[in-house]
């Protein structure tokens, strides 16, 4: 863990932080758009932060890590944060990240399935029955008026090659994955058709920044600075995804796994862009965006309802217990135009 630095109590004092990536691999997602960019462009340095990463095996593990102090901050599934809070795991959300519903149902081009109702009697591939994709598929089916327990069959197919093969071989009729996973599949040469998500999914939050509740008060300032640097990086990445991706290669050479950056940059940028789309407002241009990280009470309510339906929580979680919005005001105080300018003219060395 990297939270041993007590100097964090003092305003603006140098501090060390550990960012727990809620995934076992490094990819064109938050660790690139947030961490790599903030680190490489000196946003962390400006905040006198030294940030390191650890990889954890998913949101639950990431939350366990921050709760136990092995990590300080993570970007974890909001449903998992709610679940953790309900089980008295001392974590708290301090800012939003992915704001647009990332899950979507995909079918093969030319499939007879054009909407939720057509899924009756079909097989849907989910990542695993114990992942966000299963409750999503059920909710999607339920929304179309079907009984998720009887009318469809969910099959765990994982992500990537395995999921693509399952769809191509006809072992499943549809997939329920997140957008960025589809980009990876499409990059590998499979074309897909996507079903529209009904409106109910609008405003259900996916990844949010979370920290350990016990250290929150003591490290309020440090976390604020972290959020500020992160949102700056997000803005930069949204403006210039390719530059962000190249920075990602630099900070995490393992993304390339031995391949050449120039050969990969196009497809990886696509994936990163897909991720960024879910994490930024659907309207407007980066220059116009503000209020980074805000989560409205209505969004919380929708998220709670959805999480409850998915079985991750059994009752309502008191909002004050899970959500500390007080850091966002200071976190948004940065020169947005400067970041946008830098991004627009940035070419990686």
């Amino acid at each position: 863990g990297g939270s041993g630095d007590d100097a964090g109590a003092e305003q603006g004092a140098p501090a060390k932080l550990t960012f727990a990536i809620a995934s076992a691999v490094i990819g064109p997602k938050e660790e690139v758009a947030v961490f790599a960019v903030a680190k490489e462009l000196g946003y962390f340095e400006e905040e006198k932060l030294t940030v390191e990463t650890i990889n954890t095996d998913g949101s639950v593990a990431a939350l366990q890590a921050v709760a136990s102090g092995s990590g300080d901050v993570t970007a974890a599934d909001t449903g998992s944060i709610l679940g953790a809070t309900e089980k008295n795991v001392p974590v708290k959300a301090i800012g939003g990240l992915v704001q647009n519903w990332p899950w979507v149902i995909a079918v093969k081009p030319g499939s007879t399935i054009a909407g939720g109702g057509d899924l009756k009697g079909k097989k849907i591939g989910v990542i695993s029955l114990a992942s966000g994709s299963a409750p999503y598929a059920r909710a999607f089916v339920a929304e179309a008026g079907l009984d998720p327990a009887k009318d469809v069959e969910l099959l765990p197919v994982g992500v990537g090659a395995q999921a693509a093969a399952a769809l191509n071989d006809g072992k499943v009729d549809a997939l329920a994955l997140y957008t960025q996973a589809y980009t990876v599949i499409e990059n590998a040469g499979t074309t897909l058709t996507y079903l529209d998500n009904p409106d109910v999914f609008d405003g259900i939050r996916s990844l949010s920044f979370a920290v350990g509740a016990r250290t929150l008060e003591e490290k309020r300032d440090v976390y604020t600075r972290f959020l500020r640097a992160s949102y700056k990086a997000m803005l930069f990445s949204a403006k210039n995804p390719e530059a962000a991706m190249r920075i990602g290669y630099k900070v995490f050479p393992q993304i390339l796994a031995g391949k050449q950056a120039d050969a990969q940059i196009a497809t990886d940028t696509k994936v990163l862009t897909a991720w960024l789309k879910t994490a930024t407002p659907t309207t407007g241009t980066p220059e116009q965006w503000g209020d980074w990280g805000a989560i409205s009470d209505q969004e919380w309510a929708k998220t709670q309802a959805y999480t409850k339906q998915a079985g991750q929580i059994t009752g309502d979680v008191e909002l004050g217990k899970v959500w500390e919005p007080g850091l966002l005001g200071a976190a948004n105080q940065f020169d947005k135009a400067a970041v946008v300018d830098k991004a627009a003219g940035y070419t990686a060395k």
Partner: protein
Amino acid sequence: MATTEVVGGARTPAPEKPTRRRLDLRERPQLWLVPAVFVVVVLAWEYGTELFSVDEYVLPRPSQIFDALGRQLGDGLFWSHLWVTSREALLGFLIGVGAAVLLGTFISQVKVVEATLMPYIVAFQTVPKVALAPLFVLWFGFGLTSKVVMAAVISFFPMLVNVIEGLRAADADRIQMLTVFGAGRAQIFRMVRLPTALPFIFAGLDIGIVFAILGAVVGEFIGAKEGLGYLLLQTNYNFDISGMFAVLVVLSVMGLVAHFVIRLLQRRLAFWAEDTRVIGA
């Protein structure tokens, strides 16, 4: 007490007391030691976690695990998960161990086969099955088969190594003796090699059954709708760490039962080893 009575190292024999097999706590102290250790460990765990205020999500307390266990055992679905995993593990074990015995026999009989095949087997073994599991699912589907294959593959290797080593351990003099009386390979195998290999084989079975359970669980991790591995994922996903530990407890009990069955078989089938074993030395 065994027949070949040896007064061991520093131990005093008690020749006056006739040897009887009884459920005597003095002669078989494990009868109270095992529960005693259990109680001590559980208490230490319970109050240790309380004392150092360890959170449930880091390490739940026995009482919490026990609660969760009670909850799960009351659930009919739980028993079907248990049944699914047991079946996968058992089938995988039988297939893996069976294949290991067949291949091990073949390999140990024909030197060339060993030299030719062994490198490939070892190479295949070092491939992490967990990494291959997604491919297993692609190849063998989402149902029982892929988990059985996983369990079989993972219990295969320890058994194979032990079978080969065991079949080789046969005493040259005994083989000579059989050879003189006209025994062929098959008879030598049955009359000498196999009995000699039994301790090795039972060691392999003991390791194999434990790994078969692990294999089935890991197979379920990758893609399953049911089974204890699925339940582990589910409880973990729901942050029900006590529930997860309850499943782990059930898996442990499964392993224990399998272990004792195998040891019982061993005592029945390889009795002479017991008989000639030295007491206390």
